């Protein structure tokens, strides 16, 4: 499913002293089955942006197109619900929203609400748990007995249970330790490979965006300030610095080596071993001006 934003603006608290423009004339496109990262500081408008895709917020002006459906200021609730049934959204700290008595019930909450074949989905739950890295023996347990990391995985599984065509991730790794961050990100990458949803990930960690996304939007002050493939974005180091955004450590290191030695790496996704190999060959060929 494609998602398109055409001249979308959003005003919070309209006609009060607190009126703020949270989105300013946004034009953006999220291609079917692609992975896009939306990056920006806290308060830049990125959460507001994605909440338009499942109608949690409605545009004050402009149109959001999701598949064949149009979401506008005047769109009826029934229509919004139809669109919503195609969209899954993992919020920040999703484990804070668990409430059912058992893991199984929580996983079935979404499918039930969205009128899906619950019996069918129930059969697949053990597999789903495995996909998020949990044991199927947890199904009958209370989610509140689990560890923080396990709770987050249950909450994520609860969103994936409806197998959404559009998957929105709002800082899914926030607050986890590095190992946990890596695992959760891998979980989503595997899911992406298997089911090909249109994935949109909000993050303020460039590393994550670099590892996962093929396209990037950079937001600041309610506007999209930059867009393009990650490599192209990182090339504009100064512009990013103006927005107080850091390029990934890996890119920083490789760029620093380039500046100091005159070598040119083919791209910045090189693993440490590949980068070392590349350097070794370049030195042998005399392609490194200052060793």
């Amino acid at each position: 499913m494609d998602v398109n934003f055409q001249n979308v603006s959003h005003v919070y608290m309209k006609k009060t002293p607190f009126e703020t423009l949270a989105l300013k004339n946004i034009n953006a496109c999220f291609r079917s089955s692609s992975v896009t990262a939306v990056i920006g500081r806290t308060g830049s408008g990125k959460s507001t942006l994605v909440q338009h895709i499942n109608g949690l917020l409605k545009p004050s002006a402009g149109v959001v197109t999701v598949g064949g459906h149009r979401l506008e200021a005047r769109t009826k609730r029934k229509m919004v619900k139809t669109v919503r049934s195609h969209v899954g959204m993992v919020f920040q700290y999703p484990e804070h929203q668990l409430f059912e008595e058992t893991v199984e019930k929580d996983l079935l909450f979404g499918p039930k609400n969205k009128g899906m074949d619950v019996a069918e989905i129930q059969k697949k739950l053990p597999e789903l748990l495995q996909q998020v890295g949990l044991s199927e023996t947890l199904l009958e347990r209370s989610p509140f007995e689990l560890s923080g990391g396990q709770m987050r995985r249950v909450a994520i599984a609860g969103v994936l249970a409806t197998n959404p065509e559009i998957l929105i991730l709002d800082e899914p790794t926030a607050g986890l330790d590095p190992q946990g961050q890596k695992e959760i990100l891998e979980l989503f990458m595997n899911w992406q490979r298997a089911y090909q949803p249109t994935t949109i990930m909000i993050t303020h960690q460039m590393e994550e965006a670099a590892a996962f996304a093929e396209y990037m939007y950079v937001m600041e002050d309610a506007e999209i300030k930059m867009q393009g493939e990650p490599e192209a974005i990182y090339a504009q180091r100064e512009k990013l610095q103006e927005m107080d955004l850091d390029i990934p450590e890996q890119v920083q290191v490789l760029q620093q080596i380039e500046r100091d030695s005159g070598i040119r790496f083919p791209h910045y996704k090189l693993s440490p071993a590949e980068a070392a190999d590349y350097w070794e060959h370049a030195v042998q060929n005399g392609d490194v001006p200052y060793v």
Partner: protein
Amino acid sequence: MFENVIIGQYLPGRSFLHHMDPRAKIAAVLFLIIVIFLVNSWNGYALFGAAAIAVYFLSGVPFRYIRKGMFPVFILVILTFFLHAFFTREGDILFSVGVFSFYEEGIRQGLFISLRLLLLVYFTSLLTLTTSPIDLTDALEQMFSPLERFKFPAYDVAMMMSIAIRFIPTLLQETEKIIKAQTARGADFNKGSMRDRMQAFVSLLVPLFVRAFRRAEDLAYAMEARGYNGGEGRTKLRLLVWGWRDTLCCVLIAAFGVVLLFLRQ
């Protein structure tokens, strides 16, 4: 939804009333509540009305906020008026509708009671509109502190109130977040049968409570780590300052009370 929460109905400002000591304001409102029940003449209500208008100009609060605050009691006021109009049978009959007769005294009593209620709500609204909840808490704590001798925990109650006030926005933000998350999973908080709604409500309440307990635990640790040990030996940063406005207000209110006594029939 809850981006900018106004706690209670306090409206920040710089008016005469805003600058007054909350203790003076509370005392004044209490005094007014008492004397309003002594007023029984048209002249008395006229004077009270004039005072209300004067205080309105001292408050700097836009009229629509006062109207909004008073709207819910209107129904109550109208109801009391008719109760009195129907059931008081004194004085001359003014007019009759079917089997009902309206007596002069009934209408009079009805109007008086309605005015009392309206003025009462009006003055308390102005108090809460011009005093922040924290100032109110501080003032109440001080006014009740003499009761500590009788084992009334004024200090602890005030601490609890101020923490409650502090966490209202947190709770609202969290509620909004959970509503959004459950909505995104297809829950509907505005539609469906009674049972569906109850379930939607549970899906909201459970995580709210779980988080609240967690927060309380963290908060207890944080307070203990910063040496919180109850009220004993504690000093306070917040200081209530009694100024010329407050003395003036008290004198005026006392004079007002005396004049009202003379206007009694």
